[in-house]
């Protein structure tokens, strides 16, 4: 059931960022229009990387939609995140074509190499691992997507190798990989 998506372990944190002015602009754009809850939440997540609690109250005050409704929508759809995520999302495809071509081996190899489980973020804040239903590149199965790049015809070892290369590149270009979007 979709309610399982609510992560009970850690309470949502509030952002230290203060770019609420962008959110004000977004809310002004949708003011007075109907059916805008999902685009507003998508827009906020685009700005902040996730949906912190303070934002729910802000949207509620602005639109008159109760926080409970907003929270209901945010927890229903897989796209919305209530927690900050790493700089790069590793999306491992678990569609049918990938599943029958051993996508679970790819996932478990990554889990082992990064020391995180599905949905978790590495301690350096660089990667968040996520299983997704289908990326639609079935001919390249098994597939994963890191950031905007897709990698196909993987094995567990190859996936880990790609991730290690990306980590090395990130380490050399920035001293502080922790960056909320």
């Amino acid at each position, binding site marked *: *059931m*979709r*309610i*399982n998506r609510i992560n009970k372990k850690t309470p949502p944190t509030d952002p230290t960022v203060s770019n609420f002015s962008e959110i004000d602009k977004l809310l002004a754009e949708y003011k007075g229009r*109907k*059916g*805008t*809850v*999902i*685009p507003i*939440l*998508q827009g906020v997540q685009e700005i902040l990387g996730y949906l912190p609690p303070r934002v729910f109250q802000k949207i509620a005050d602005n639109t008159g939609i109760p926080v409970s*409704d907003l929270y*209901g*929508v945010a927890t*229903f*759809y*897989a*796209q*919305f995140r209530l927690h900050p995520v790493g700089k790069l999302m590793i999306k491992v495809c*678990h*569609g*049918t*074509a990938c*599943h*029958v*071509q051993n996508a679970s*081996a790819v996932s*478990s190899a990554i889990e*082992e190499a990064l020391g995180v489980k599905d949905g978790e973020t590495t301690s350096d804040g660089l990667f968040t691992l996520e299983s*997704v*239903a*289908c*990326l*639609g*590149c*079935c*001919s*390249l*199965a098994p*597939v994963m997507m890191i950031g905007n790049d*897709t*990698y*196909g015809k993987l*094995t567990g070892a190859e996936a880990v190798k790609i991730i290690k290369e990306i980590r090395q590149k990130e380490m050399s270009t920035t001293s502080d990989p922790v960056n909320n979007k």
Partner: protein
Amino acid sequence: MQNTKIIVGLGSCGIAAGAGKTYQKIETLIAEGNLDVKLGKTSCVGMCYREPLVEIHDASGVYLYGDIDESRVPEIIEKHILEQKPVKEYLVKTDLFPTPDDSFLKDQVKITLRNCGMIDPEQIEEYEAHGGYQAVKKIAAEKLTSADIIKTVLESGIRGRGGGGFPTGLKWKFAAGYSSPEKYIICNADEGDPGAFMDRSVLEGDPHTVLEGMIIGGYAIGASDGVIYCRAEYPLAIKRLNIALNQAREKGYLGTDACGIKDFNFDIHIKEGAGAFVCGEETALIASVEGRRGMPRKRPPFPAQSGLWNKPTNINNVETFAGIPWIILNGAEAFANFGTEKSKGTKVFALAGKVKRSGLVEVPMGMTIRDVIFNLGGGIKDDKKFKAVQMGGPSGGCIPEYLADTVVDYDSVTATGAIMGSGGMVVMDETTCMVDVAKFFLDFTCKESCGKCTFCRIGTKRMLEILERITNGEGKPSDLDELIDLAQQIKDNTLCGLGQTAPNPVLTTLRYFRDEYEAHINQHKCPAKVCKNLLTYTVNESKCTGCTVCARNCPVNAIDGERKKAHTIRQDACIKCGLCFTKCKFDAIEMS
């Protein structure tokens, strides 16, 4: 070199395979060599298995090259463009001589995909040059009425391509029958089936045909507004749809007096989905467009009477809309000439899994499943044994090899216990465990259940628990009857298509592969050697050279042995990860 044109296939699958880099490389080489060559873009022609694809048009003909990654570009430019010698090695298709890949395209009939891979989807002029927007012009010129169009669509026999298979003309007739100043037409582009990518390819490859189909539908039912509900996971499709919408507005196909039809004021907007499989269901989709949780509601009232914002609404799938302009232009009869008695026209399938040529195919209804897999798909990967094909995704089922001569039409596929569905066709071979496949789909529907109906919410969970038990080797003989009982209750007591069809993957695998379930339960064996907990890894002492690779790679140090002597695996410590099996160069690790 004059009049030479190079076209790169830049669909999502092509880009994933590296077509973006191929394009850039060609661009650079053209600039560096100051070559008199035009460079163009198109989308997916369906041959995903040979991506990245590059097509060269020159004075001698048209040549389609496959597997052209960045590194092969210089060779192609050098030989084909500069020396005018086609590189046979990478050639996929040309009209000048036959190639092994011809059989992929030979038996296809392209109506929905007629422009995919042929035109640049970001140029409205290219669509117009290929007969685009001629159908709406015909409607305007011949002053066709709503009733005329609905009659043509009814006579064509086209049925909903999203999975339901409800006659499209009938649906339009119902929606047209309710009068209201506000009326909506929605395109369902929330393609959520794992293993299906037909709609994505159409939206990326030919967005204007979907718009034209919607304009025709909008005119036929008297709609005031159109909405495309598209998965947010398809960023390229959304980008190209937005470009197409702006172009169509500029050219007057949308807006006030759209297409030059007086008093037909019609525009289309995109709503991005946020990731919920259940939103493929009509009433859930409407709830989502309205900004609520995407939960289905009871019908009646059907959307035709009371849908989006409680106004009459008609919903069709991407593929259905994409076929409409062709039907209006070529007539109902031309469409109905293809197909079987009750399923007219063609159907697009996404061929994937253990098949040699995976990709997108469009075939006339009535072709056998075997022909699709073996003639078009080229057979099973690594020449393994064909076991089953999964059709219809989480709502469908597995059709076994001995029923592969079933023809593809709505009724024949339904008779097997699977469904036509939106068109995913995932091929499975002897190394696929059918109990594991059933568990995979149940896991999916269980996670995606919206939670409204008790039987779907809890029933799928209970079924999943039983399947997990069986694949862990803890199944009981009574489990199979319990699965069937639960399945029936879920089917009978849920509101929407997701719940009603959720048990199908279990029911079909139980019907055709009961022996596999029984092997798991009674002998604690997984015949396909997939279910981890039922496997044991042992060292074949006669083959083991004592190279120590397995022992060094074992993550739990469960392998003992001295150098140059046969190793052994301690079964109590083994976590069955299979790493030793893949690492051993001497095939000394055996799995049973």
